[in-house]
C-alpha cells in the first residue's frame, strides 16, 4: 500500500529565531528522501514536529490525506511514524529484549516471535539477552530500529544516523534502509553528509535558515550543487575589506594532539597552524567534529604539551585559561548559558569571571565590588548591552545582549587574540551584525581572531584564512579569497 505524507505550510517560531518558515513538503513511499541542511537550518525542528515532540505554531500534516494531530510522541507512534534519534534512547542497564518491549502492551511471547521474524528477515544479529551497555553503537542503533519495526511503521525517520557509526556499520545500515524502502516503508533521512545523500537517497530537500530551499531528484544533483544549496553562496559579497595584514606571527600551534577518554568526544589529531597579527582564522566544520575540543585546548580548559602552543613567543600549552589571559588571550565559548556566563548570577558577577589581574577585581582575596561594577558599566555602555541594571541576573538578558556582554567582557582588556566559538549562534539579525562588526573592528586594530563556527556564511564573511575540521583533523589552511562555498561543503562532508 502506498503511503503519502504531506507537510503543509508548517511554521515554528522560537523566541528570536524562525526554526521553520512556511515549509511544505510531500513524501511518497517507495523512495528514500534526504533532508539536508547545516546545523540550525531547521531540519531537526521539522523532524521533531513529525514525531510529535514539537508542536508547530502553524501548518498541518497529512498522512494518506488524513489530517494528523501530533501532540506527543505517542501520537506519532499510534499513527505509524517511527523515529530513530541521533542520540539513542535506550536503557543501558536493561537487556536488549527488555528495551524492545518496554513501551509495548503486547504479550511478551508475541513480541518475542515478532522480534525473531524481524531479525531473520533483515539479517540483524543482536543478542537479546545482553545489557545494552555492552553493545556497539551500530548494534544499539539496530535495537532502536527493531523497536520501530515492531510497530510496523509506515514512516521511518532517521536523524543523522551515521554520526556514530563506522564505515562498515554505515553500509550495513544503508542496505537495511533500502530493503525497508522496497517493502513500502517511507524513509526520511536527515543528514548533512553529502556523500551519503548521493549514495542512498532518491530525492533531496535542502533547508537553510528555516526555509525550504529546494526539492529535487538526486539524478539532477551532484555534491557541488548540493553543497552550494546547503551553504548558500549569495552572502559572500559582504565580506570584509581585505586589509594589508602584518606578517608578524602571533600564535603557532605545533603537533597538538588530544585523546579523550570520553567516547562522545572527538580526538584531535596533529593540529598545526599559525596566525599573524590582525588576521582572522576561520575554522569551519559540521558540529561534533572536534570544534569543542579544539576550543578547550586553545583556551586552556584542556591543558596540553607546553611547547605545542606558542603565543607571542611564549610557550603556553600548559597554562590554564586564567593564566593565558595574562598573556592577552580572550575566549568566548559556544555555550552562553552553561559556560560563558552563569544565568543565576548578576551581570556584574559574570563580568568578574574574566579575572584579568590589572582589572583589580579582587584585592588580597577580597571582592572589590565597586571596581567590578564600574568595569561592568563600562562594558555595558561600550558594547551596547541593552540594560542599565548591572545587579540584574544575567538570565534576564536576551541572547544577543548576553553575547554582547560576554564579548565585551573578553575584549575590554584589549587582548591580542580572541578565540570564539559560534559567537552568533541562535541570535537575531541585529545582534549578529553587531557581533560581526565588532569582530571586524578588532581585526582592524591589528588584533587576531580564531573563529570556530558552524555557520559558513559567517566564516566567509569574517575570515582571512579558512580551514575545515573533520573528525578531529584540520584541513590545510586556505586563503579565504580562494575558498568557495562548494569547496567548504565538500571538505566539511569529509571529501577532498
Amino acid at each position: 500500500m502506498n503511503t503519502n505524507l504531506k507537510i503543509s505550510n508548517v511554521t515554528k517560531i522560537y523566541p528570536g529565531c524562525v526554526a521553520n518558515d512556511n515549509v511544505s513538503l510531500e513524501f511518497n513511499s517507495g523512495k528514500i528522501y534526504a533532508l539536508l541542511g547545516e546545523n540550525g537550518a531547521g531540519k531537526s525542528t521539522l523532524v521533531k514536529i513529525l514525531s510529535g515532540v514539537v508542536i508547530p505554531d502553524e501548518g498541518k500534516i497529512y498522512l494518506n490525506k488524513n489530517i494528523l494531530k501530533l501532540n506527543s510522541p505517542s501520537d506519532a507512534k499510534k499513527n505509524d511514524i517511527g523515529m530513530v534519534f541521533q542520540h539513542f534512547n535506550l536503557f543501558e542497564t536493561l537487556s536488549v529484549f527488555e528495551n524492545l518491549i518496554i513501551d509495548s502492551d503486547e504479550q511478551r511471547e508475541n513480541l518475542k516471535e515478532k522480534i525473531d521474524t524481524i531479525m531473520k528477515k533483515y539479517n540483524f544479529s543482536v543478542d537479546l539477552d545482553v545489557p545494552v551497555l555492552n553493545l556497539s553503537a551500530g548494534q544499539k542503533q539496530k535495537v532502536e530500529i527493531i523497536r520501530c519495526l515492531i510497530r510496523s511503521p509506515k514512516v521511518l525517520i532517521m536523524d543523522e544516523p551515521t554520526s556514530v557509526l563506522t564505515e562498515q556499520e554505515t553500509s550495513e545500515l544503508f542496505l537495511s534502509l533500502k530493503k525497508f524502502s522496497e517493502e513500502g516503508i517511507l524513509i526520511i533521512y536527515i543528514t548533512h553528509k553529502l556523500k551519503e545523500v548521493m549514495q542512498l537517497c532518491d530525492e533531496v530537500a535542502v533547508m537553510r535558515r528555516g526555509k525550504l530551499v529546494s526539492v529535487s531528484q538526486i539524478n539532477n544533483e551532484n555534491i557541488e550543487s548540493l553543497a552550494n544549496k546547503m551553504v548558500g553562496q549569495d552572502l559572500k559579497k559582504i565580506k570584509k575589506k581585505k586589509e594589508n595584514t602584518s606578517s608578524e606571527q602571533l600564535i603557532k600551534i605545533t603537533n597538538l594532539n588530544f585523546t579523550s577518554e570520553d567516547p562522545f568526544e572527538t580526538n584531535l589529531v596533529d593540529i598545526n597552524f599559525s596566525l599573524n597579527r590582525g588576521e582572522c582564522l576561520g575554522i569551519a566544520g559540521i558540529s561534533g567534529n572536534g570544534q569543542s575540543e579544539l576550543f578547550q585546548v586553545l583556551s586552556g580548559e584542556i591543558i596540553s604539551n607546553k611547547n605545542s602552543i606558542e603565543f607571542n613567543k611564549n610557550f603556553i600549552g600548559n597554562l590554564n585559561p586564567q593564566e593565558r589571559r595574562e598573556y592577552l588571550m580572550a575566549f568566548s565559548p559556544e555555550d552562553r548559558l552553561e559556560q560563558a556566563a552563569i544565568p543565576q548570577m548578576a551581570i556584574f558577577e559574570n563580568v568578574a569571571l574574566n579575572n584579568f589581574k590589572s582589572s583589580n577585581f579582587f584585592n588580597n582575596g577580597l571582592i572589590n565590588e565597586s571596581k567590578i561594577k564600574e568595569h561592568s558599566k563600562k562594558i555595558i555602555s561600550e558594547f551596547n548591552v541593552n540594560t542599565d541594571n548591572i545587579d540584574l541576573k544575567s538570565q534576564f538578558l536576551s541572547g544577543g545582549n548576553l553575547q554582547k556582554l560576554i564579548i565585551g567582557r573578553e575584549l575590554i582588556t584589549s587582548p591580542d587574540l580572541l578565540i570564539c566559538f559560534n559567537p552568533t549562534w541562535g541570535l537575531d539579525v541585529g545582534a549578529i551584525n553587531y557581533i560581526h562588526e565588532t569582530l571586524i573592528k578588532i581585526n582592524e586594530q591589528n588584533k587576531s581572531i580564531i573563529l570556530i563556527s558552524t555557520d559558513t556564511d559567517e566564516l566567509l564573511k569574517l575570515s582571512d584564512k579558512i580551514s575545515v575540521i573533520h573528525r578531529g583533523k584540520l584541513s590545510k589552511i586556505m586563503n579565504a579569497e580562494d575558498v568557495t562555498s562548494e569547496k567548504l561543503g565538500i571538505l566539511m562532508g569529509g571529501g577532498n
Partner: protein
Amino acid sequence: MIKIVKRDQPSKAIFFFTPVLAIFLTLIAGGIIFYILGFKPFEALKFFFIVPIADKYGFSELLLKATPLCLIAIGLSFCFKSNNWNIGAEGQLTFGAIVSGGVALLFYDQEGFYILPIVILAGAIGGMIYASIPAILKTYFNTNEILVSLMLVYVSKLILDYLVVGPWSNPEGFNFPETRQFSDSARLPLLFEGLRIHAGIFLALAAVVISWFVFYKTYLGFQMKVSGFSLKTAKYAGYKGKKMIILVFLISGACAGLAGVGEITGPIGQLHREVSPDYGFTAIIVAFLGRLHPVGIIFASLVVAITYLGAETAQIFMQIPKYTGQVFQGMILFFLLASDYLLFFKFKFIGSKK
C-alpha cells in the same frame, strides 16, 4: 479556575516564606498524628514545642542542642552550595570527637590553659581528615561522595566503639564502655552556673560570621559559588575546580569535628558510645531549612533543636517514644521539599471569562 504557571524569577520573599510554610504544615501534620494516637493535638503540641523551652533551663538546653546543629549546618552549606553532597557529617563529627578526645585523654591528669585550644584544634583536624577521604576519592577516582561519606559514618562509630570498650576504656571504670573523665582544663567553660550551655556556642557564632564573610566577600567564596553553579564555567574562568571540592569538604569536616569537640568537652566530658544523637544527619535538614544562608541556619537550628527537646518532654509526660522527634524532623524536610514547588511555580486564579 486555578492554573499552575511557572515563575519567572523566584522572589526573595517566597524564598524565605517556604521554610516557614513547611514548619506550619509540620505542626498541622504533627497535630493530626497526635490526634490519631489518642492525644489532644493542641496539648500535645504544647508539650512538644512550648513546655520544653518555657524556663531558663529549657532555653539553655535549646541553645545547647542548637549549637552543634548550627555549626555542622554552616559547614555543610559550603558543600551543598557547591553541589558536593557530603552527608557524612555525623562521621566527621565522631572522628573529630575521637581525635580531640584522644588528645584530651593524654592530658587527663594535667591542668593548663593551653590544653583546651589543643583539644579543639585536634577535633577540627580530625573532622578534616575524615572529610578528606570522600573528597579525594571523588576528585581523583570519581567515586560518589554520597555513598563514601555515608558509609564512613558507620566506620567511625565502630572505631569509637572499639576505642571506648578496648584501649581507651577507663581503667577504673568497671568495664563500662567509656573513657576517663577529661580534666577541667580540657572542658569548655560553662556560661552560667547551673546551666549546661557552654562556650561552644561562640564557636558556632564565629562559624556563622566567617562563613558569611567568606561566601559573600572573598574571591575564594566567589570561586566556590561559581564552581557550584557550573564546573564548566569554573574551568573556563581558570579556577581550580578539584581544589575547590576538597576545600569545601575540609571546611565542612572541620565544622563537624568542632561540633564533636563541643559535645565531648561540653556536656559529656568524656568519650562514650553515644557522642551525638545524630546531629550530623539532622544538620542536613537544618542546612536546607535555613536555605544554606548563615542567618537562616541560625533560625533553622533553633527550630530543629526544639524537636529534640520536645521529644524528650513528650516521652516523659505523655509516654510517647522519643523517636517522634525524628518523625518531626522528617516531616519538616518533607514539607520543605514539597513547598519548594512554590519557588518555581505559582498558582494563578483565572476568572471564568477566559
